[in-house]
């Protein structure tokens, strides 16, 4: 076990002039989680908009279901995706297990309910304000939804960021479906877990610092977006 001080010094050095390995791990993390965030938005925003604007039988049940899915533990998501993608599973023929694609799938499954549930809340509040005006203007449902999505863009961006933050920080799902294979499926969180268990604290700390910077950065961005959205609303 290295001395803590030494480990910190090494970690800082790594962050300031990253090795190829470190850059690769960070790059893969960002690629996987950003792709998952985009996919989760493509799936979750329309679902959120539908739940916000449509009244149909079973809507309440769907709402409860989506809200419950928000709290899914990442390891459970990982396990379910693993079962689907494993050779004996229904999607086994795709041969995706232990690839970055499998990690993207797992993180997408993990955060789509978050995007759907949070955007549903935002769009429903906005729709309460707009719906009668839209009907007076004789807009179609699709035109109304488009206007809601655009007018809610700042708040929805914070939803996407929240999803990204959760995806990039989770370890259980990507560990199970990705397998933490060097140069292939090793991302920041799985690398931190591995390096720590090996006692390689310098790399783990360097990754930890980068992950924390990303998490804090995302949070700061969410806060400032929320503030500016509130400022906009105050002028409403």
């Amino acid at each position, binding site marked *: 076990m290295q001395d803590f001080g030494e480990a910190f010094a090494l970690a800082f050095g790594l962050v300031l002039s990253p090795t190829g390995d470190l850059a690769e791990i960070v790059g893969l993390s960002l690629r996987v989680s950003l792709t998952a965030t985009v996919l989760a938005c493509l799936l979750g925003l329309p679902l959120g908009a539908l739940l916000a604007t449509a009244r149909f039988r079973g809507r309440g049940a769907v709402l409860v279901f989506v809200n419950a899915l928000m709290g899914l533990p990442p390891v459970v998501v990982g396990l379910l995706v693993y079962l689907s993608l494993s050779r004996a599973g229904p999607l086994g023929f795709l041969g995706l297990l232990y690839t970055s694609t499998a990690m993207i799938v797992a993180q997408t499954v993990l955060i789509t309910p978050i995007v759907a549930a949070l955007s549903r809340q935002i769009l429903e509040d906005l729709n309460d*304000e*707009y719906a*009668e*005006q839209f*009907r*007076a*203007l*004789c*807009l*179609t449902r699709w*035109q109304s939804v488009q*206007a809601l999505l*655009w*007018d809610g863009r700042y708040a929805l961006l914070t939803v996407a960021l929240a999803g990204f933050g959760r995806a990039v920080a989770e370890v259980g799902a990507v560990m199970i479906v990705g397998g933490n294979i060097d140069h292939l499926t090793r991302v920041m969180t799985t690398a931190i877990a591995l390096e720590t268990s090996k006692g390689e604290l310098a790399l783990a700390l360097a990754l930890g610092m980068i992950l924390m910077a990303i998490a804090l950065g995302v949070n700061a961005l969410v806060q400032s977006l929320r503030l500016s959205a509130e400022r*906009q609303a105050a*002028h*409403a």
Partner: protein
Amino acid sequence: MRDLGYVETLEHAMLPLTVSGLRLSFGGKTVLDGLDLSLTATGVTVIMGPNGAGKSQFLKLLHGLIAPDAGQIDWNGTPATRATARQALVFQKPVLLRRSVAANLDFVLKARGKDRSRRDALLDHVGLSDKARQPARRLSGGEAQRLALARALALDPEVLLLDEPTASLDPGSVLAIEAIIRDARTRGVKVILVTHDPGQARRLADEVVFLHRGRVAEHSSAETFFDRPRSTVARDFLDGRIVV
């Protein structure tokens, strides 16, 4: 009950309007109680009545936004629910989109398949050309109401329904908005205007409908209404007495 002194019954595709036995209630509270009304004249019909008389709800019914509990609304053969696209309703508190003034007009022009090059002329018409790039949500009350009017006019309505468009606005805005209403009237748009302000009613009305307790208490030409109102409630209202 009706002697419409002025005669200005030009042809209008949406007139006559025939409302019969209109009932509307919320919970146990009756808002409209078998309202009958027939409008034949073009020009400006002003609707007045005490607070809570059901004026705003009546406009929503005329625009087909809500359904009555009973009764019919017939716009020259078209029921209210299918007349919405041929009319425009400006709410007392219009909802503007969270985008620029110009983008608010762009949006409805595009959504309703109108000529988008008319946007600048519309802004000019309501005196908002210099605010085109500003966020609509930062407009003053009067400016916001003028943008709502421009948006309504962008729809080429045959009927313009206005719910207290100048309530609590500065005199300059009131003047500007009344000029816009007069102009619409001149172009043959049927205007139905709810107002609280007898002065405004005098300035704009061709005829007046006075609502009271969920029914039409008086329907007269503007001249008759202001000079010799027939109903006690209208007389009390004009004399500044409290009408409940």
